[in-house]
């Protein structure tokens, strides 16, 4: 059982705070994505877990034991670096064998384990190659295999797929997910690609400016963003100023929308609030229904049609399936409505 806990972890570099007061629990066997824009502290958090950085404050607890000051080489974690960090002077097999040879394991055992791992990442027969003779995707697999050589307690990956082209990346996402499910190893992947995080993870941790913004399943993060940052960072969201009436109806641009039981309302009446609605949940209506807005941009995206509306300088994006395309043109004045149950309100 390798559950992982961080207890109010803070990491400062000089006067810069990279990670601030992070507390979280990761259950055994979970696939976790650390998601955030560049410079949000996600890589630092991963390095703190790996023992490559020592926290300024707080504790790292692995399987119930405080490992805050245990050096990386004693943690028995596997890690895939952003640069992959494959050793160019060693062959593929020697790279994968490195964790075992450094521990002085018998040669026959090492060879057997390397064969097993090469088979696992579908690189059988390529053990004698040099790293530079492999393609990008093959190197990726070598790095993954090398991280799994010792059956790590925790498997850490820092932006592992960022160097691959789009097709290969999607393929590797699925493969990595399948591998993790087969092995059941607690896995933490750092990524800035929200699509990657949503497709792979059991649990997404959204970070910004060194702080955890939200922890939840991909569905929770997408459907119920905790704040304006998460709403804006995950997918596209329309963020509009709104107020909440005492009967919990939502008022946007002077128009009242009756609250639905499924709407997520995290704010109090009378305070400055923000309404978040996904573009696919915005509908245009005949003028007079809902607040009025002007069509300023129409774009055919193939799988959908995008309408951009303007109301008092606020842009509202609506997304329609081509079959359901409404008959509106540029510069038309239309009414706007938001699908009941899909509205999220949080403090601005």
């Amino acid at each position, binding site marked *: 059982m390798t559950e992982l806990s961080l207890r109010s972890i803070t990491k400062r570099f000089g006067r810069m705070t990279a990670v601030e007061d992070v507390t979280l629990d990761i259950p055994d066997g979970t696939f976790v994505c650390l998601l955030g824009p560049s410079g949000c502290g996600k890589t630092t958090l991963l390095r703190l877990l790996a023992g490559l950085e020592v926290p300024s404050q707080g504790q790292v607890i692995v399987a119930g034991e405080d490992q805050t000051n245990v050096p990386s*080489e004693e943690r028995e974690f596997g890690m895939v670096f952003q640069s992959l960090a494959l050793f160019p002077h060693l062959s593929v097999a020697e790279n994968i064998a490195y964790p075992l040879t450094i521990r002085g394991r018998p040669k026959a055992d090492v060879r057997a384990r390397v064969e097993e791992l090469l088979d696992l990442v579908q690189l059988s027969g390529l053990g004698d190659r*040099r790293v*530079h003779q492999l393609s990008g995707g093959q190197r990726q697999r070598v790095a993954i295999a090398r991280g799994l*050589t010792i059956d790590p307690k925790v498997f850490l990956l820092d932006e592992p797929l960022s160097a691959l082209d789009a097709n290969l990346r999607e393929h590797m996402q699925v493969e990595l997910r399948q591998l993790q499910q087969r092995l059941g190893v607690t896995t933490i992947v750092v990524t800035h690609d929200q699509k990657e995080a949503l497709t792979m993870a059991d649990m997404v941790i959204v970070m910004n400016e060194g702080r955890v913004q939200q922890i939840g399943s991909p569905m929770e993060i997408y459907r119920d963003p905790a704040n304006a940052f998460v709403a804006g960072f995950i997918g596209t969201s329309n963020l509009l100023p709104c107020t909440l009436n005492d009967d919990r109806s939502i008022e946007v641009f002077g128009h009242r929308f009756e609250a639905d039981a499924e709407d997520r309302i995290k704010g109090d009446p009378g305070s400055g609030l923000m309404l978040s609605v996904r573009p696919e949940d915005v509908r245009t209506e005949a003028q007079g229904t809902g607040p009025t807005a002007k069509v300023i941009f129409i774009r055919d995206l193939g799988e959908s049609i995008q309408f951009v509306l303007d109301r008092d300088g606020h842009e509202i994006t609506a997304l329609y399936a081509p079959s359901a395309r409404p008959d509106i043109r540029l510069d038309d004045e239309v009414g706007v409505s938001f699908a009941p149950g899909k509205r999220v309100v949080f403090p601005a």
Partner: protein
Amino acid sequence: MSGLRQKPTPGWLPFLPAAWLVVFFLVPFAIMLTVSVAHRVQGGFYEPGFEFDSYMRFFSVFFGRILLTSVLISVGAAVICVLLAFPFTLGLARMNKRGQTLVLVILLSVLSLSEVIIGFSLSTLLSKTAGIGNLFAALGVTEESRAYTPSLFALMAGMCYLALPYSVLVLYPPVSRLDPELGEAARMMGASPFQAFRTITVPMLRKPMMGALILVFVFTLGIYLLPQVLGQPQHWTLSVHITDQAIFQSNLPFAAAMAVFLLLVSLAMVGLSLLLGRDKGGGA
């Protein structure tokens, strides 16, 4: 604006460096070869001829010892330089950019000092009357001041002082390009800091280290002033003897023959070290 068409690169351009090599390297080398087989006039100069008398003089114990001394001193200087430069460069690469620039500028400024200045500075610094011997005596480390020059130690100090900047400059680019994540990866996989250094850092820098060794070896092989200033007569290298024969004994044929021989020896040493330093797997 049709007149803006670019003129093609003139066809004779590649021959320019070749001509340069012929005029400034091949011709002097040919002259040296001719002189080395010329006939020496005892007490005079030399007259044209074709004889191997000068080369025959190599086959003596005396000459063998000189050759051995030259090679050993240069190999020693090369090994010491790289042993010093390697950790130094690793440390340098870990400094911040401003610190790195500062250290590199200081190193480069050392290169502007001539062999003469370094030689005489060291011989003063290591002398009995004005040197560090006085400091040791004053501190009570030694009973009384003594001279540390001329000696093998003084000679090595001078040669390393002269060659160290070159070895750092050869090692610096590959060391600074070394991905720190490689070391971290080794640590994650269970290697102690020393094991990571031994299994990753050193093997990856084997080629640049070989390059620095060759450079210092060839460079110090040609030094002829320092052995005379800082060394004892038994430390006189082949280069010193060439100077001695050419300038003081007026035996140009013999000096030329020794120069040809020195060239062959250094070529052989470089070839040998390249052979030894070759990557077994043929990798990057």
